[in-house]
């Protein structure tokens, strides 16, 4: 498979900041309005970045819907939206959080899913936990049905949870589901690249992986050296994220680190229109 060299990420649009509470609050407030996301999609598109890695968040999906050139975008959803489920899980439990999400679907979506998923989810604890995962994925994917998909990432928390079980079944099922039901490439997000990749090799699972890579070694586990060695020697398709180390590196400092290493793509989160033009232009000149 071939992925675009540069991709836009949605972290800032969801209020994620690793630098400070002040920045996180600014993102949350500013990007709560989809009208403030659309110009960034436009700017990215203007410099040729037309692949968007995103979660199934209301404001982000509304922006994609509103963006007049959304038919030119290739979307790479990250599913499920683990943050939303985790937030609701303390009150409702994991199952309750899933059901709550399902309630938000339109009648059209429910009919399209044949109500099958709702029925299954309600009885899932007594029946089949894997069914829950599959139906959850179907629920999430329903939001993306109008758009061109380039692949689907399994959320890093689920990838890493599956990794910790020392059992390849969940990853195999995810791969089959994405290929069979949506006809696109399944991919994995992780925060444990250096642990995940050797395990995938042992399981003989060849799949694109998205993981943090940056000059500072931020979130590179078990170590920056090991992650670099694996990306260069493994032959796996790797998408680098957190290249700017959560904003601690400028684009000029960050992109030379990526150059020369065997990355398929670089994912960059953007917080403003000027930042989009500056960051992507530096990336293009370096890579």
């Amino acid at each position: 498979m071939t992925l675009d060299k540069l991709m836009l990420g949605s972290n800032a649009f969801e209020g994620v900041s690793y630098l400070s509470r002040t920045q996180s609050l600014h993102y949350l407030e500013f990007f709560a309005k989809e009208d403030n996301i659309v110009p960034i999609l436009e700017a990215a598109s203007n410099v040729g970045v037309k692949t968007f890695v995103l979660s199934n968040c209301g404001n982000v999906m509304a922006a994609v819907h509103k963006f007049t050139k959304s038919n030119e975008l290739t979307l790479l959803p990250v599913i499920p939206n683990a943050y939303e489920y985790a937030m609701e899980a303390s009150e409702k439990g994991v199952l309750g959080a899933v059901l709550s999400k399902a309630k938000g679907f339109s009648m059209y979506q429910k009919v399209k899913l044949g109500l099958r998923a709702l029925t299954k989810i309600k009885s899932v604890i007594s029946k089949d936990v894997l069914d829950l995962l599959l139906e959850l994925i179907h629920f999430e994917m329903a939001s993306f049905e109008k758009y061109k998909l380039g692949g689907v990432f399994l959320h890093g928390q689920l990838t890493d949870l599956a990794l910790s079980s020392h059992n390849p079944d969940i990853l195999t099922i995810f791969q089959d589901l994405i290929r069979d039901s949506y006809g696109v490439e399944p991919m994995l997000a992780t925060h444990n690249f250096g642990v995940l990749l050797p395990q995938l090799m042992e399981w003989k699972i060849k799949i694109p992986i998205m993981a943090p890579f940056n000059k500072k070694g931020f979130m590179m586990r078990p170590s920056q050296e090991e992650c670099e060695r694996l990306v260069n020697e493994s032959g796996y398709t790797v998408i680098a994220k957190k290249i700017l180390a959560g904003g601690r590196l400028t684009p000029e400092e960050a992109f030379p680190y990526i150059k020369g290493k065997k990355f398929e793509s670089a994912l960059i989160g953007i917080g403003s229109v000027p930042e989009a033009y500056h960051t992507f232009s530096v990336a293009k000149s370096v890579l």
Partner: protein
Amino acid sequence: MDKDKKLNVGIIGLGKMGILHTALVNMIPQAKLAALSDVNKQLAKYVDQAGLRAPFFSDLDKMLNEVPLDAVFICTPAFTNLAVVETCLKWNLDIFLEKPLAHTLEDAKKMTALAAAGKSIQATGYLFAHMSLFKKAKGLLDVGVIGRIHRFKSSTYTSEVFGKKKGWYYDKARSGGGAVINIASHLLYLLYWYFGRPETVFARAGRIYSEGVEDDATALMEYPEGVNGTMDVSWSVPGYRLPYMDLTIEGDNGTLELTNDYAKLYLYKAHKGYPKEWTTIHKIDMPVTSPFELGAEGLYEEDLDFISRSLDRKRPAVTWQDGLEVQRFIEAIYRSADRCKVISLNEVD
């Protein structure tokens, strides 16, 4: 310590934290995930399909009878902890107990006393002790970078409760309380770790959405040698994706502001290798301290610390005595808020 020995570990309670500890124990080379337990029998299916290669028991006694264990992680609702701890201590097991120790000070004292009578290793889940930035800040305070401390202010907020909620977590009889015991307890641990036990507490607590527990609280603490501090907590503030902590400490030689993201020093005079005026230490710049991460920074280190201390029979980073001090702090805040009077910590028994 036998370097080849693996600790046989059981997990009790498979809620959100139980699942996380199960995953982390499974990734720690010095541990073997030997058994899982939850009162919900239907979770056997989860254990099987998640590929966990450990037997599942809905009956704790049966698990303890059938599986030889060295240690357990107890991740059950707080109101059940005492009974589970009593059972596990009868088997002389080392115990990691998720925070808080219990829903009441009385239960926390009972289980700490029971544990003290034996030789088992006990740890509890106050995560800040395992986060590199907070350890760094502790080091700065210990060497006196900001000089003699006068006062501090602290807060922790999250966007979690904006309407009436159901479940044991929001029922004081079972959870022990609301935002203070469930959200602020991590910050209260940090304050205890940095400043020790306060002499007195005066607190007010309020309900906005919840009927049975507090949604917010403010406390004023007095410490020996004239140090004063404040703590503010709410789980009903918009704009906080995750719980966020802010602690600003003022000393003779400047200030230290500590948050989840950075530690910022302002020094009047250069001291202990830190320059005059501003120095910011970002979490992003701290070295990676664990080979694996899931759920939150520090969780792997927390579990590894307990497992390592169980193997070498040494004191873990956060003991039940520490947990009991936090519980006493929480109790003082609740008593003060209820009675609208200053509470002396030494009288909280």
